[in-house]
């Protein structure tokens, strides 16, 4: 027993050192990327791109399910984004509330014919509607089939060279499209690009635009602000130099339409459809020597609401973990396969070892420490060292994300102290809860509950 506890403790230490090492590499890579990005974008004239007749066209795909509270503001904000010839495709995914009625009332919708064939099969489409008030708006009304199915329906009717996938309640900053489109102009190998997602909770929003970003003073959304900063400014930005990204957030990502259609669009029988699409695009690209780069661009920003209740957050994290498990399982052939270059040799092993099985190792490690201390088989100094490496390291990492964000973008003029507080508090209670939710996700995935979404509640934006 004592020997097993010690072995688990050493395993936990090894895992922690590996995780810390990876984070350190990502931190350095992110800092270098951000430095280069800042120099490349200093004094950039985005309006040239806006006026240019040779810029690629973009269709925004906004799936909406029971979004009556926020849909008008969201669509208005989308229609006024800075981009020439923008098409906005809202897909009403069989909402049971007044989402479609609100859209009809606000945008004077009339029946139209779908522009194009149904390249990707979807749940039955009831109607395609065009707006008399906004020529760039197209609404697809279909039977419920889930977010991925709604995005596929949008893909079928979109006409842009690029498609921007988002959530209907995401608020995209006016010039975000002009910024996120840049990689596609500079590199023909780019198949997808994503921007930064920020937490909108507590910020002042008016007419679908964030007027003043504020740090939430409530713990749950506040800690998620730090989590998002860390995920985007360290994780995704860091991966740009280390083989590219495997995740483009479902809340805001830009894809080449022809490549996305050619690979069959979004998969329906998964809850990690955004990551799965990116992995598939990269996999197919590498297999057929076609474009396969996926880039994260830090300055285009989209804002999203994060869960404010423990129950909803638990469901979200459970779903994310099941999604990750599903993607790793589907594409396990990539792991360690040199044919897929960095995707096979670096990214997939990282996501499998650190992101997928991390919670399991962490839980076992914590259990072993507690047991070891109770049974007096572990030296208290060793246990403290373990916790310092495993948990203490998270504080400087989170703070680094906060510092990078403030130095580069200065979004929050007030509330820095709150950010620091949340960076510390995340490790006391929240991280352990998240561990439980993620473990539950793995157990449920193993138990066969792979495509259950769970209800999410949304509030209106204006404050």
């Amino acid at each position, binding site marked *: 027993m004592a020997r097993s506890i010690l072995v688990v403790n050493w395993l936990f230490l090894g895992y922690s050192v590996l995780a810390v090492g990876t984070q350190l590499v990502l931190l350095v890579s992110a800092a270098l990327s951000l430095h280069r990005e800042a120099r490349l974008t200093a004094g950039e*004239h985005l309006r040239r791109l806006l006026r240019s007749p040779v810029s690629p066209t973009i269709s925004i795909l906004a799936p909406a399910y029971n979004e009556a509270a926020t849909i008008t503001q969201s669509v208005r904000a989308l229609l006024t984004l800075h981009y020439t010839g923008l098409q906005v495709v809202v897909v009403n995914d069989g909402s049971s509330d007044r989402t479609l009625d609100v859209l009809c009332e606000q945008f004077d919708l*009339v029946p*139209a014919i779908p522009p194009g064939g149904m390249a990707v099969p979807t749940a039955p489409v009831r109607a395609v509607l065009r707006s008399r008030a906004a*020529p760039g708006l197209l609404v697809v009304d279909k039977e419920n089939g889930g977010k991925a199915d709604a995005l596929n329906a949008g893909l079928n009717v979109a006409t842009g060279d690029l498609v921007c996938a988002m959530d209907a309640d995401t608020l995209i900053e006016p010039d975000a499209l002009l910024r996120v489109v840049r990689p596609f102009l*500079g590199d023909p190998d780019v198949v997808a690009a994503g921007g930064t997602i920020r937490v909108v909770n507590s910020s002042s929003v008016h007419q679908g635009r964030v007027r003043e970003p504020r740090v939430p003073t409530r713990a749950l959304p506040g800690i998620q602000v730090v989590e998002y900063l860390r995920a985007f400014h360290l994780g995704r930005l860091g991966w740009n130099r280390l083989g590219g990204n495997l995740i483009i957030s479902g809340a805001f990502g830009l894809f080449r339409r022809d490549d996305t259609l050619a690979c069959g669009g979004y998969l329906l029988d998964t809850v990690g459809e955004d990551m799965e699409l990116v992995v598939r695009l990269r996999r197919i690209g590498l297999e057929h020597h076609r474009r396969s780069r996926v880039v994260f661009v830090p300055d285009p920003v989209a804002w999203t609401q994060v869960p404010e209740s423990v129950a909803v957050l638990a469901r979200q994290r459970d779903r994310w973990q099941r999604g990750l498990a599903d993607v790793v399982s589907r594409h396990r052939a990539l792991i360690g396969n040199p044919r897929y270059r960095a995707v096979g040799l670096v990214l997939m092993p990282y996501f499998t070892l650190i992101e997928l099985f991390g919670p399991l190792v962490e839980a076992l490690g914590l259990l072993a420490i507690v047991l070891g201390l109770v049974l007096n088989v572990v030296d208290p100094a060793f246990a403290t*060292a373990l916790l310092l490496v495993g948990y*203490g390291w998270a*504080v400087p990492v989170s703070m680094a994300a906060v*510092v990078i964000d403030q130095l580069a973008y*200065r979004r929050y003029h007030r509330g820095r102290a709150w950010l620091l507080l949340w960076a510390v508090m995340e490790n006391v209670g929240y991280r352990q809860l998240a561990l439980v939710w993620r473990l539950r996700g793995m157990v449920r995935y193993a138990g066969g509950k792979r495509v259950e979404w769970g209800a999410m509640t949304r509030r209106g934006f204006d404050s």
Partner: protein
Amino acid sequence: MSATVLLIAAAVEGVLLAVLLSLLLVERTLDRARTRREPAVFAARAALVGAVHDQAPDLPALAALRALRAPEALRLLIELADTVSGRARVRLLDLAEQAGLPAKARRLCASRSWARRLRGIRALSRLHAHDDHVIAVLLGDRVGAVVAAAADGVDQGSDSKLFKRLVGLLDDKRPQCRFAAKAALAAAGGAATPTLVAYLQSTDCPCPADALEAATGGVDLRLLPVALCRTGDPDPLVRARATALLGALGSMSAADRLQALLTDPNCDVRAAAARGLGRLGEWAPARQVARLLEDPHWEVRRAAALALNAMGAPGRLYLREAAAGQEGAAAQAARYVLVLPANAIDTLLV
């Protein structure tokens, strides 16, 4: 050993935390300093607006500008340059020259650091302080971003040699340079036409499709002969772009060729030909266009329906006939256009 590990871990984390906290403190101090300087920037902005729009004397504006730090003054001038045109822009540039800011930007363009060269050329472009010599040098830069920024600086008033350099960049190995060259040629409009015509007529023309796309930005009848010639190109992409250009030129002498292109084997060419005829508003080929309502490709059917609508009463007659006919692709395409508001049709036809 455990105590040593503990000590090392604690020390590393402590140092990191201290560094990060100091950085955050520095950021906060800088933010406060920036806030303190805001009144000076506001005052300079007001003085500059007064000098530019109300023809107020130069001295107060120059004094306010000189009270700012060079990057602040440059940012302010760029911000204002984006919002003015004509005489106001000339006056703003004159004030900027008096304050010595474009000269500073030119010095940056000669820097050994690519980031400074990039900043310099972007500042010159946005201030509309054209310097063909600087642009010509930077179009040969080793860094793609700098070349692209230099290409952005070429406009209607630039020397024709710069347009030749841009055309040469259309087959550059760096995609961002290719895109910037194409966008700059399109933005230059008629000024770039002679260069584009010469390029498209020459035997050494590796990127005709990109040149034709750039030419669509400036509608100039001098392009008509090359556009007509390129509609016979074996490459479907070149034919489609040439057809689109022909349609954009809007010359009645292109009508016959556009009509012939309605039967091209490539769907993009057929769609572009239908769109072009729609833009001409010529109703004579309405029957041939109406046949495209049965085309297997939606884009062609859509373009045909929009074109028929733009042809006036005869075209709409065909549309109503198709809409009332048997349920099928033609009826769908016709109804799609018939329910659209007029302003949407104008937008979609372009």
